[in-house]
């Protein structure tokens, strides 16, 4: 695990695909002219006869991956997250309706491709994938979780979507030694006044917000849910009962992502005051993902501020 700390999410993806291919001869990789950008090409260099580049045709890629799964293989279909979403209907009507495991990996997710701007910034993918019955949806926080998410889905019986960033790397789960398991949520820091729940790279900022709140005398629980679907609802409810107030934060639209999933659960199980933090934009170009996160208010300070406000409201 240690060498993963130094890798970016996409580098970890490339490494993980090769290791999955070493472990299982039925693993195949399909990509859409982004083998280099996604690092899927590492797999192609190691296993040229198990690597299929279908050109710039994501919808076709989903179908080809579905066919490979029907023929008994374990396909990973790798493309930019945004352009994989143009195949939403193919994903619904091919692997999902067939109920067969095609593993979709969307890279350059969220703001991670800062340079290319709105056309390339997928901020809706979790919502689009989560609405599909039976789809497993994973938003790893860093290279360690990305690596594990790939390796642990080789034998998945359900279709899977894994959301991976580009170069921005905030290796929090690596440094904390967290042990990723598909379907599990994690309490990273205990607390009783309010909970901050993150998915994807926001784990880093959620923890930082927890420290800021501690300085201000607020005891915040910080939790991380790399698997958005199936949601660890047992843990969600336990956190709600313990803290009575929840801030969710994701590098994704405030509609339809982790915040929505948690709100849907708690509305029916144990309603508590919530704040859902995320994006309400289609994005824009900038010099770095961090610049965009700050521009759109996804900072530790803002998370802490929202949590403080929520505690005040809950107590009044």
């Amino acid at each position, binding site marked *: 695990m240690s060498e993963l700390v130094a890798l970016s999410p996409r580098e970890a993806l490339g490494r993980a695909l090769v290791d999955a291919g070493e472990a299982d001869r039925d693993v195949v990789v399909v990509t859409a002219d982004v083998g280099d950008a996604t690092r899927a090409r590492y797999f192609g260099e190691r296993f040229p006869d198990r690597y*299929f580049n279908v050109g710039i045709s994501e919808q076709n890629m989903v*179908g080809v991956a579905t066919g490979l799964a029907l023929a008994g293989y374990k396909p990973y279909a790798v493309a930019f997250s945004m352009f994989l979403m143009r195949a939403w209907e193919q994903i619904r009507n*091919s692997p999902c309706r067939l109920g067969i495991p095609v593993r979709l990996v969307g890279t350059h997710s969220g703001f991670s491709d800062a340079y290319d701007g709105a056309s390339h910034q997928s901020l809706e993918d979790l919502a689009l994938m989560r609405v599909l019955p039976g789809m497993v949806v994973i938003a790893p926080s860093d290279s360690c979780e990305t690596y594990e998410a790939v390796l642990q889905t080789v034998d998945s019986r359900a279709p899977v979507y894994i959301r991976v960033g580009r170069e921005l790397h905030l290796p929090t789960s690596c440094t904390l030694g967290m042990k990723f398991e598909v379907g599990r949520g994690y309490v990273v820091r205990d607390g009783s006044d309010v909970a901050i729940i993150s998915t994807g790279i926001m784990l880093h900022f959620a923890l930082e917000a927890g420290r800021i709140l501690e300085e201000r005398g607020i005891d915040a629980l910080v939790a991380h849910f790399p698997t958005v679907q199936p949601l660890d609802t047992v843990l969600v409810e336990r956190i709600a009962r313990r803290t009575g107030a929840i801030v969710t934060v994701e590098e994704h639209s405030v509609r339809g992502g982790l915040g929505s999933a948690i709100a849907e659960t708690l509305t029916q199980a144990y309603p508590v005051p919530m704040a859902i933090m995320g994006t309400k934009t289609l994005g824009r170009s900038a010099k770095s993902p961090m610049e965009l996160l700050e521009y759109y208010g996804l900072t530790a300070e803002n998370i802490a501020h929202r949590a403080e406000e929520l505690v005040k409201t809950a107590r009044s």
Partner: protein
Amino acid sequence: MWAVRNTGELRRLACRARRLVLLMAAYDPGIHLGSSLSVLEILTVLYGTGRVKFLDGSAAKNWLILSKGHAVHAIYALAAISGIVSIDELRETGSLGSVLQNHPELGVNWIDVATSGSLGQGISIGVGIALGLKRRGSNGRVYVVVGDGELDEGQTYEALATAAHYRLGNFIPIIDYNRVQLDGHVDSVRSKGDLQRILSGMGYTVHAVDGHNVEQLAEVLDEVDSSDALNAVIAYTRRGKGVPQIEDTPVQRIPRDLALQLVSQVTCDE
């Protein structure tokens, strides 16, 4: 299952299937009658010659994907003749509790890729299967039946180009060229261009046949199956074949009385 080589027998099989498609149209006006009738001989020859079989679990089997899934009632009719489903089940098609949904679903495990219905996706899936079979060293072949109107979906060309790139000789697209799509004749909705030249330009050897002539269809499939080159079949057909009231029109439905009357008029020399 069948392994019919005799033209008369294939013709009789198609006739019986046509009668059962009409029977289903009588019980469920929602079926796509015109499309099921245009594709009928193509599917009859694929199943009738034993190229594809219902419930074939062998590793070396051939695959059939009916990408134009709305014409699935032609397959249901053949399945009934082979004994896989009963005539009573055919009468229930399209009802809530029936496995014979009006676009195929997973309940019909005797159809290879049951979940077609959204146009343009079957060819890509067929290409994926063919790539997989080729890598495994299997002799299995993949027949994908596509509509002419379906070619409007850009994904069909993405898939055809992918098959051409990988020189997939085990992948055989068969275009049911019935000249009609939902809003009218294909040339009035959106011209398909010179399809033979388009496909040959992509690298395919194109075989044009009369898609209602079982003898021609069987001959072309024999030729294609003995070749490892890139092949495509264009089967020229008539939408609604056998029902003069809707033939060569976009009309899919006929009144129940007419359907029953046609059922009683079709005789297949039994």
